[in-house]
């Protein structure tokens, strides 16, 4: 894509109290992209997001939003961003509307009409004039999203945005995000544990583990990596063959089962070889991967550092 990147993270590192929380991150996002950010607890997702919006300073590296450096051109960079970081904490002693008006007052480009539009977009019209101490978790979440949308940002960063929403709410949210990305060319950056959601909403995904991105790719491609299971008489031989011929790392599951992920080579080709080598193949199945399995597979066995 030849458009200017909306978000560029170059060589981001962060050390907190001597511990390297973020080891290395490079990331580029373009307009209309819906991007998912995944990782186990403690991998550094929220830390990365905080660095993007200037809450934390990177130890090394740069963050650029729409061509403006967050470190040196904060105001211009942030004019393009709307975000929620973890929970959207707002002033409990004010009403929803008063909270939004406070944020609107900080930015001359946000008028009263825009505030009303944002409220409508998240469906809070009927409760907007109540004190937020009376809101449910879902309502607070919606208000948070409204707050993020106020400035018509080019980059929308959402940390756990569907937290507390009921299934209907989640569907509404999904539709809203899609609309924003395609109709208003917003880039949406979503960090979530709800892998199914990410799978449904995002087109690109990065998986972060222990401060580095271990996998990035279009969701479809990643999911396209089929997971195959064979039942054979000699699992070890099969594993050796798969490794030798196609460099595929297979693992032995229970008794006679071998499992591997396949990208390129066709299943037919592999099966042919296995049989040729004298293996008795009793069962073979292919499972469409879910992001969850991909995720767990890549990150399993990790301790939270």
């Amino acid at each position, binding site marked *: 894509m030849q458009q200017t990147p909306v978000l560029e993270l170059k060589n981001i590192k962060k050390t907190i109290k001597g511990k390297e929380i973020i080891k290395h991150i490079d990331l580029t996002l373009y307009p209309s992209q819906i991007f998912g950010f995944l990782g186990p607890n403690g991998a550094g997702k929220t830390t990365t997001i905080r660095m993007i919006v200037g809450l934390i300073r990177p130890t090394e590296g740069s963050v650029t939003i729409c061509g403006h450096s967050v470190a040196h051109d904060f105001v211009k960079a942030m004019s393009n961003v709307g975000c929620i970081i973890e929970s959207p904490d707002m*002033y409990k002693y004010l009403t929803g509307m008063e909270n939004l008006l406070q944020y609107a007052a900080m930015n001359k480009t946000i008028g009263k009409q825009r505030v009303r539009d944002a409220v409508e977009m998240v469906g809070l019209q009927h409760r907007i004039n109540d004190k937020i101490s009376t809101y449910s978790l879902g309502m607070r979440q919606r208000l948070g999203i409204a707050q993020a949308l106020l400035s018509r940002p080019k980059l929308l960063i959402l940390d756990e945005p569907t937290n507390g929403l009921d299934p209907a709410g989640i569907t509404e949210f999904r539709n809203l995000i899609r609309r924003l990305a395609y109709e208003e060319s917003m880039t949406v950056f979503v960090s979530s544990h709800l892998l199914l959601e990410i799978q449904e909403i995002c087109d690109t995904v990065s998986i972060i583990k222990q401060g580095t991105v271990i996998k990035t790719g279009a969701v479809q491609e990643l999911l396209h990596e089929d997971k195959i299971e064979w039942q054979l008489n000699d699992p070890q031989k099969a594993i050796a063959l798969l490794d030798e011929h196609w460099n595929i790392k297979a693992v032995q599951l229970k008794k006679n089962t071998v499992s591997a992920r396949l990208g390129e080579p066709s299943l037919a080709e592999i099966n042919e070889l296995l049989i040729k080598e004298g293996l008795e193949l009793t069962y073979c199945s292919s499972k469409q991967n879910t992001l969850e399995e991909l995720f767990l597979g890549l990150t399993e066995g990790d301790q939270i550092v």
Partner: protein
Amino acid sequence: MFSLIENEVTKMIAKKRLMFVLIILVILISVFAYGQNRTLARTKAQLTQRMGITATVDWRKLAEQQLIDMKGRLDSPYMDAKSQSSLTVRMQQLQYDLNNNINPLDQSAAKFTATFMEQSIFLFLPLLVVILAADMVSGESSSGTIKLLLVRNVPRWKILLSKYLALIILEVVVVFCAFLLSALISGFFFGFGGWMAPVATGFKVLAGKLDASGVFNVQEWQFSLMVYSLAFFVAVVVGSISFMISVLVKSTAASIGIILATLIAGNFISFFLSDWTLTHYLFMVNLRLTDYLSGAVQPVDGMNMLFSVTVLFVWALVATFVSFLYFTKKDILV
């Protein structure tokens, strides 16, 4: 910036802190006025008992007598030149009382207003300011609202400045209300007058002693204005320091605790002022600025109005500087 300050003041009002402070003021002023009233009645009764009824009711004779005595002293060639001013000043006051038929023992709204702030300036007023200031940043840190405040297209220093200016605005309001409430509430007890009465000022501290040689009278309203201006200055200084603590410390309760502890410690440390010069530079012991004005100060060598004001000013400046430096650089991890 205007809208930012408006935001901050709105938050403070919505949090009901300002109202809380004003209520405390009303209660304390009422209690103080009532107490003074009772003491006055008791003093008058005691004098009557000891010296016969003439002492209180017939104060005019006494005042006239005192005037004559003082005039005599003034005329004496052996009169100490230094005491001349204080004598003249006292005579003017007595003359005013006689002319306006005011019993010198009596309290007035004007006198009370000035006295109340003179008594409040070193502990009570700072307490009120701390209630407002201590929460300004640490409250947002502990509740997490600071995140959404900082991820906007406004640089951090501007946000902190808007908070600081909002604090100053609130400090003016508090001082103004203290004045208004004192005058109003005490007026019910003592009558609403007394604003033109002469009050002595012009005291200086020279070489560790109180020097009354340049003393002269100003009208009570001018005196009150000066007292409340000094109070405002103290409020801004204490506010700046509380503000800094609020930036550095995440909990509002800890913030308030720290400031209160230092203020109270100041009371104890004032015992060492004459022996331990280092203590002169603490802000807590320099808060009694109105004492210099009224001559009620316990003179300590080297501590005069200019010194105290300078010490306080430097503290406020450093505190503000530290606040801004820390706030703009720190990582927000809440």
